Each structure stands twice: as structure tokens, then as C-alpha cells.
């Protein structure tokens, strides 16, 4: 009788924060002082990064293809927006309620999504998002329809930090929420739960044999991803004090997929980098010619799909492997 022992050290080490990561998270602080006039754009980047992170959890880690992730973003945005426009302007509880609402929707739809294969999943996620879009479009007396949801008034965070015109509070608020949620997601993907999710993506047939309940795990991660997206949507509603109907649009889901692939799916920093590159490119390109930037966007995506499947993160990893041949960087 011998006891099988597995060396868990590499897995545990992966959980530890590296210097490069700490450096990365100094960027928000740096950004505040370097681009004081672009705080609104930077806030948008933070929110999109959080949204992208949520898709990364379900697509990059769990391998669930979704064409309708905007459903959860939109639901979060409308939940937070409606709360605030009906007098509940406290931001943090607004985030929590939005996360809850999106999480519940995520859980319910996960039951539908998990039944099918890739193609069915695409269609079901798309269908759910389109249903919400139509609802928000038609229920004008609640959502404001095409005109968007107006009259959102936020109370100060913790009763002290009021939302100002320049967007300083909104900036720090979004960055802190992003960081905390990122930290939690990082813990999650390095936990045994997260590893089992990765295992399911890599070999769905073997995981039940190892005692992992595949469907329950996938439903859980889908729910978590949905809640994350809900928080991102809520942040958007709270910081811009407006919810446009397009939070639920197909375009938003499609664009998000693109951002994630640009950064490199299946890596948390890929989601961050993809968002930064995408939003910066969007900003610059649409300044140059506002109508045609989508063309270059499409071209970029096509090149990535054909030639650089791992996106920015993959490129960085290759570069790192070349510079430091002895160990591969893989957070």
C-alpha cells in the first residue's frame, strides 16, 4: 500500500502575487496623475475591464461560449439605475443588489445554457440577451425605452465621497471595485474550484471520473460570471448616472468577445490588457475617423484569430519566454 502523493507546491505558488502584478496595479494610481483630464475614459476602461473579466471567467476558464453576455451587464445597469432613480442612491448596496439580480438571472439561464453544445449555447445566450433587450425597449414606463433611463441620483459613498463633475470619485470608486473583484477572481481561479473549472474545459469527459460534478461547477461559474457582469453594469449606471438601451445590445456582447480575444482569453491579465489596448485604440482611431474605426477593429480581430490566437497576453508570454528561458510566465 502506498499513498499517492501529489506535489501541490507549483499550484500553491501560482496563487502568490508576483512583482509584475503589483506593478500592473500601480497603473491606476499612475493614470490618475498622468491623465487627469481623461478620468472619464479611464473609468470606462475600468468598467469594461471588469465586464471583460466576467466573460473571461465563463469563456476563458470554463469554455462556455456566449454571444449574449451583455444581458447581465444590462440587467445590472438597469437594476442599479432603477434603484437610484427611485430614491435608493446608496452606491455600495446598489452594486450588491445588481450583482444579486444578475447572479440570479445567470443561475436560471445556466440551466438552459448548459443543456446544449456550442452552437446551442451561442443561440440561447443570444436569445436571452435579445429578450431582455426587447423587454427594456418596450417597458418604456420603467426603463425609459430608447431614450434611456434618466434621473439617477447617487448619494455619496460611505456618506462622505460625493460624485463630482470631474469624475474623481467615480474613478477611484471603479478602480477599487475592479481591484477587489479582480483579487477575488484571482483567488477563485487558483482555488481547487477554479482548477476543476479549467479541468472541465480541458477534458470534460475525465472530470466526472475525478469526482467533479461538471454541471454544478459550470452552473456555479456561470452564475459568478453573471454577477460580475452585473457589478460592471451597475458601476456604469452609477458613474455615468444614465443607462442607455444599448447596454443590452448585441453589439456590446460582440465587442466584448473581441476585447477578450484581443487580450487573450483564459488569463485574467489578458482581460485587463485587452480592454486597455482596445479602449485606447478605440479612442485614438475614432478620433482619427469616427465612422470607420470598426473596419480596423475587424481587421485586427481577423489577424488575431488567424495568426495570434492567444492575443496580447500570448505575445507577452512568448516574449517573456524568450527573455527568461528558464521559466514560463503564466499567471
Amino acid at each position, binding site marked *: 500500500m502506498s499513498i499517492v502523493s501529489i506535489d501541490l507546491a507549483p499550484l500553491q505558488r501560482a496563487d502568490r502575487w508576483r512583482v509584475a502584478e503589483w506593478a500592473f496595479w500601480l497603473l491606476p494610481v499612475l493614470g490618475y496623475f498622468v491623465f487627469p483630464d481623461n478620468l472619464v475614459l479611464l473609468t470606462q476602461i475600468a468598467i469594461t475591464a471588469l465586464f471583460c473579466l466576467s466573460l473571461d471567467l465563463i469563456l476563458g476558464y470554463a469554455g462556455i461560449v456566449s454571444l449574449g453576455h451583455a444581458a447581465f451587464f444590462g440587467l445590472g445597469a438597469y437594476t442599479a439605475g432603477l434603484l437610484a432613480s427611485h430614491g435608493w442612491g446608496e452606491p455600495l448596496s446598489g452594486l450588491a443588489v445588481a450583482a444579486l439580480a444578475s447572479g440570479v438571472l445567470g443561475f436560471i439561464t445556466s440551466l438552459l445554457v448548459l443543456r446544449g453544445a456550442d452552437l446551442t449555447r451561442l443561440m*440561447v445566450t443570444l436569445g436571452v440577451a*435579445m429578450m431582455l433587450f426587447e423587454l427594456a425597449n418596450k417597458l418604456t414606463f420603467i426603463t425609459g425605452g430608447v431614450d434611456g433611463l434618466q434621473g439617477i441620483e447617487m448619494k455619496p459613498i460611505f456618506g462622505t465621497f460625493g460624485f463630482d463633475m470631474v469624475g474623481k470619485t467615480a474613478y477611484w470608486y471603479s478602480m477599487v471595485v475592479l481591484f477587489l473583484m479582480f483579487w477575488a477572481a484571482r483567488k477563485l481561479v487558483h482555488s481547487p474550484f477554479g482548477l476543476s473549472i479549467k479541468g472541465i474545459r480541458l477534458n470534460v469527459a475525465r472530470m466526472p471520473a475525478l469526482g467533479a460534478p461538471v454541471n454544478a461547477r459550470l452552473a456555479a461559474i456561470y452564475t459568478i460570471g453573471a454577477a460580475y457582469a452585473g457589478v460592471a453594469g451597475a458601476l456604469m449606471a452609477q458613474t455615468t448616472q444614465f443607462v442607455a438601451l444599448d447596454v443590452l445590445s448585441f453589439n456590446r456582447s460582440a465587442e466584448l468577445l473581441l476585447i477578450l480575444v484581443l487580450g487573450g482569453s483564459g488569463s485574467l491579465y489578458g482581460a485587463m490588457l485587452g480592454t486597455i489596448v482596445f479602449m485606447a485604440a478605440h479612442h485614438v482611431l475614432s478620433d482619427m475617423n469616427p*465612422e470607420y474605426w470598426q473596419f480596423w*477593429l475587424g481587421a485586427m480581430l481577423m489577424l488575431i484569430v488567424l495568426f495570434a490566437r492567444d492575443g496580447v497576453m500570448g505575445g507577452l508570454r512568448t516574449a517573456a519566454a524568450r527573455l527568461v528561458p528558464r521559466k514560463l510566465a503564466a499567471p
Partner: protein
Amino acid sequence: MTVLFDGIASGMLLFLISVGLSVTLGLMNFVNLAHGSFAMVGGYVCVTLLNKAGVPFLACLPLAALATALVGVALERTLYRRLYTATHLDQVLFSLALVFMSMSAMQYFFGAQQQPLNLPDFLKGQINLPGLDMGIYRLFLIAVSLLIAFGLQSMVSGTRFGAQLRASVDNPRTARGVGINVERIFTLTFALGSALAGLGGAMGVEMLGLDPGFPVKYIVYFLIVVAVGGSGSITGSLVASLILGVVDVAGKYYVPQVGSFVIYAVMVVMLVFRPQGLFGRMAAR
């Protein structure tokens, strides 16, 4: 009755465009979200020929189909074929990229506005029966679509090409082994799918309108038809299109406040209980 008729007409139009997608997605197992872009190309070709070059409308339709088929073949030879064996996600991303690019390109060449289409006189007007007003163009549309439906069905199930196609899809290795040129079959099929999209797009300008947002606006409908009808089934696409067309038109007519909600709901429920579609066979993969 008029509502029913209009529903059938719009269903037929939907069929005309989506059957091309049913061919590429269903038979070739390629998730081609850019299908709407092909339809849009057909539409623009038709409008340009008609308005700028003065080509008669009936000649514009086959020309639009031909032009779109050429575009389809060019793209298939250069880009699509690299992704036949890729994952569905890669195919989705790639075709999304194509959608974005085509939308910008059309906006660059034609502007963001709706394109006007002047139908020839013999297709204008209505036939009025008691309780039923039939637009002549819609009748024309229904006739063309039915013709295409029968043609396709007999082609896939009856001709040598159809048999080779089914063989290539079901088992490319064996098909190659018995001497079928699988690459050529796929190229031809893709051309066929694009031509149908182009034809549908050209015929749809009158009813759906045409602007650079076309591919995104209607792709959901095309996907629904294929998903509900069962991919690769021509009868399925026809039935699904008709149901969708009638429900959509009737819904918008009788209960406008519900809008398209019902359609999406029906699709989701459908997919959950019959993932392979109404008439589908299980996906080969």
C-alpha cells in the same frame, strides 16, 4: 387574411436569405455570422445596378446573386477554408470581424443612409380580393422563394452534386478516399450559400431596407431560422421561416407592445427542448 399573407411573404424572404446560412452552417458546420454581410452585398449590388446603371430589376437579381457568389468564393478560398477545422468560437470571432469590416466598408462607399429602391411598374400595386390585399411584389417574392426551395431540395437530395456534398460533410476523409474533391465541393457550396444570400438581400431591399447596419440588425433572425428549422434541413428552414414570418408580422400587428419578445422566447424554449431543431439531424461533429 392580409396579415397572414404579409407574414407568409416576409417568412419567404427570410427563408430566401437564411437558407444560404442553413447551407453553410448546417451542411458545412461553419458558424458564419457574416451571412448578413453577404446579403447586404447583394442588396448594394442590386441597388447600384438599378439606380446608377439602369439595369432592369429582373436582371439585377441574378447579377446580385452572381456578384455575391464571387465575393463568397474569393473569401472562401483565402480565409474561410483556414477555419473549417477551427473551434466554433474561432469561427464566430472571425465572422464577427468580417461583419464589422463589411459594415464600415459599405458606410465608406455608400454612406449611412437607407438606400432607395425603385421597383419596376409591373411589380408595384396590389391585387385586391375581398378581405385580402396582396402586394404584387410579395406574390413575386413568394413565387421565387418556392422555386428556390424546390430547386434546392431536389439538388441536395437528388443530384450527384448533392450526394457528394452530403458525403463530404458527413465524413470528409472517406469522401476524399472515394475520389470526391472535397475542397471543390465546399467552395461550390459556399458559393451557392453566398449566392442565395445575395439574391435574398437584393430581393429584401424593398421590405427590410438597406443600410450598413443590415448584417447586425437581421443576423439574429437568420440564426433563429437555422436554429429552429434544424441546420442543414431545407424543409426545416422553410417551415421555420414561415412560422417566424407569420408570428413576427402578426405579433407586431396585433400586440405591438410585445414586439419581438415572443420570437426570442420561442426560440430559446425550442432550443432547450429540441437542440437539433424541428427537422434537424444531429450535428456531425
